């Protein structure tokens, strides 16, 4: 039976169903409702786990390093500045091969201070060795939670992961969702039984330093595990679908891509809006389709090559900018296709920065601009979309 709940509540309930041993959190907008609900579950006995209120995001993730190494299933959630404060710890977690799962609520990075949504925070952490999967809606973010525990904790993977979900747009929306059944989750996600733990009966050293004769091999093994995660994400996604009856595709998903000439590539909650825009345009005879990136790390290079092989022009829409060189997804996609037979032009749009809405109108505008490439060639390979020229005028003081 579906129930209408706030996104954050849905996530908290999905975490509860995963039976974490240790949750360690620090509050930050718009992640707060998730951790408040989790603390309520603990307070009223709905969730039996250790819940630590720490003094910073740096310590929330750091404390989970200790808990995970001691054999605990561990969870945290953060956003934006909190994720940035964790930056050093992110690399350490993945290097230590600890399967911590985090809900990364996507929010802009200061300055200027903005509590609103974009995906700059997680995109800036893309090299950190964490699996990153972007959810389109609340249900997908909920369903990803047990899937990512299962993927991360697999002895062949042992790589931490993030469920990325757009701040406010998904965390604060009230949507009808199907709650997970804890018994079914237990069947899907077995208890965490790590092979290597901190145990006085069998003392081991965790976090030794590696000199140049060893370091490369540690990174190589991490890279291999992330490669293996591609198949694992697909496999676990199918297993989940078999038990719960809900599937979202594997590393990517496609929408109206048959015979599509203009292909949009995007991720996160904007996918829903883009689908609506695609429907509208299709009804008007525009051959447009959509590729939804679910897994950004590992990057679904092969799947994208297949999905986009017949497109005549491709546009990325993403909520991040790499100041100094376009946006990350655009760069990745061009890189993925460079040595392939695909020669469709690729252009990119950084949109929805700091919470600016991307509505159907904006998507249509992007499709229009992208379609022009077919006639006029590439005018601008990359653009920061929806810049209000009047804001840039000297002496302009707002609406």
């Amino acid at each position, binding site marked *: 039976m579906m129930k209408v709940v706030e996104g954050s509540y849905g996530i908290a309930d999905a975490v509860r169903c995963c039976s974490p041993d240790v949750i360690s959190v620090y509050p930050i907008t718009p992640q707060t409702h998730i951790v408040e609900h989790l603390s309520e579950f603990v307070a009223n006995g709905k969730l039996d786990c250790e819940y630590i209120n720490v003094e910073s995001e740096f310590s929330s993730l750091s404390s989970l390093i200790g*808990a995970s190494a001691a054999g605990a299933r561990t969870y945290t959630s953060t956003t934006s500045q909190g994720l940035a404060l964790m930056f050093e710890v992110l690399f350490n977690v993945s290097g230590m091969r600890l399967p911590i799962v985090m809900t990364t609520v996507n929010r802009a990075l200061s300055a200027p201070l903005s509590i609103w949504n974009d995906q700059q925070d997680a995109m800036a952490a893309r090299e950190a060795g964490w699996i990153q999967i972007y959810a389109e809606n609340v249900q997908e973010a909920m369903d990803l939670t047990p899937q990512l525990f299962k993927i991360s904790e697999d002895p062949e993977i042992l790589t931490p992961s993030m469920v990325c979900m757009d701040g406010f747009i998904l965390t604060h929306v009230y949507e009808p969702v199907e709650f997970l059944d804890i018994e079914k989750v237990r069947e899907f996600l077995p208890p965490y039984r790590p092979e290597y733990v901190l145990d006085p009966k069998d003392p081991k050293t*965790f*976090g030794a*330093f590696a000199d140049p004769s060893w370091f490369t091999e540690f990174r190589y093994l991490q890279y291999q595990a992330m490669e293996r995660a591609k198949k694992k994400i697909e496999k676990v996604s199918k297993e989940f679908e078999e038990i719960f009856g809900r599937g979202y595709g594997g590393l990517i998903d496609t929408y109206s891509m048959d015979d599509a000439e203009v292909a949009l590539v995007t991720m996160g909650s904007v996918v829903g809006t883009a689908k609506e825009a695609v429907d509208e345009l299709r009804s008007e005879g525009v051959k447009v389709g959509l590729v939804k990136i679910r897994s950004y790390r590992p990057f679904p290079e092969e799947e994208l090559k297949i999905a986009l092989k017949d497109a005549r022009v491709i546009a990325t829409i993403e909520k991040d900018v790499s100041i100094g060189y376009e946006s990350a997804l655009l760069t990745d996609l061009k890189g993925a296709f460079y040595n392939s037979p695909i020669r469709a032009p690729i252009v990119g749009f950084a949109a929805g920065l700091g919470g600016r809405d991307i509505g159907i109108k904006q998507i249509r505008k992007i499709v229009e601009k992208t379609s022009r490439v077919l006639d006029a060639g590439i005018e601008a390979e990359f653009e920061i979309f929806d810049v209000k020229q009047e804001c840039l005028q000297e002496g302009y003081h707002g609406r």
Partner: protein
Amino acid sequence: MEDSLFAPGHRACAGCGMPTAIKLVLDAAGPNTIVASPTGCLEVTSTPFPESSWRVPWIHSLFENAAAVASGVEVALKRFKRTDTNVLVIGGDGSTFDIGFGAISGMFDRGHRITYVCYDNEAYMNTGVQRSASTPFCAKTTTTPTGKMSLGNPRPKKDMAAIAVAHGVPYVATASIAYPVDLRRKVKMSLSADGPAYIQVNAPCITGWSFGEGDAIEQSRLAVETCLLPLIEYVDGVLVGVKKVRRKRPVEDYLKTQGRYKHLFKAEGGAEVLAKIQAMADANAAKFGLLD
């Protein structure tokens, strides 16, 4: 100490005071112990992959998060009902007084049953003797060098023990490698505390302080005998123990044997500094009742 829980073969400098401190601490804590260490001399000298000196489970993550890592270990042990296992942090003064300070405050505040041991060598020794907040007044370091305009570190040593007491930490003590029986007893006391504990162990650094080989223990003893290093013990915020100094020695006896204070005996203004340091030692003696 061949059966020590801290195995030989580590890469600490010959004459370093730190391994002595670690062996004494582990000896007192026993094998049912998990240790978290921050980055620093101890970490780099004891765990060059694939070797390790640790005969107890040990974890290192970063420079500034050992107290948080240990918090997670302690909480997980609670979860798994393995609370008979001791959890220690053993880290240097740079990570304790400076970069890891926030995480330590959090650990104290949350009341974890963790003994935080700081081996205090009074500067960033692993990176080459830079000043930390533990560096004493007018000691020379590579970032508080002496010169026409400088007599070394311009600030007194931060009082971490008092900060721990102010957090309501149930057991707080200072110790010295020159007093091993006292140190071992304090570690044992800390492990029976119902909550966090803080022990600061003076561990002289032969390269950073510049003294003679084999003198580390003697240096630490001189620090105590001059009253520059009061050995004190607080239980629930109350001063319950003080190591009495039978024959108080002038601070010069301590300072003149170390390269880091050499300038004070030559440079203009050195005499005034020596007088100030003597006044600090006298104040310690009076404050803690170190003399009979």
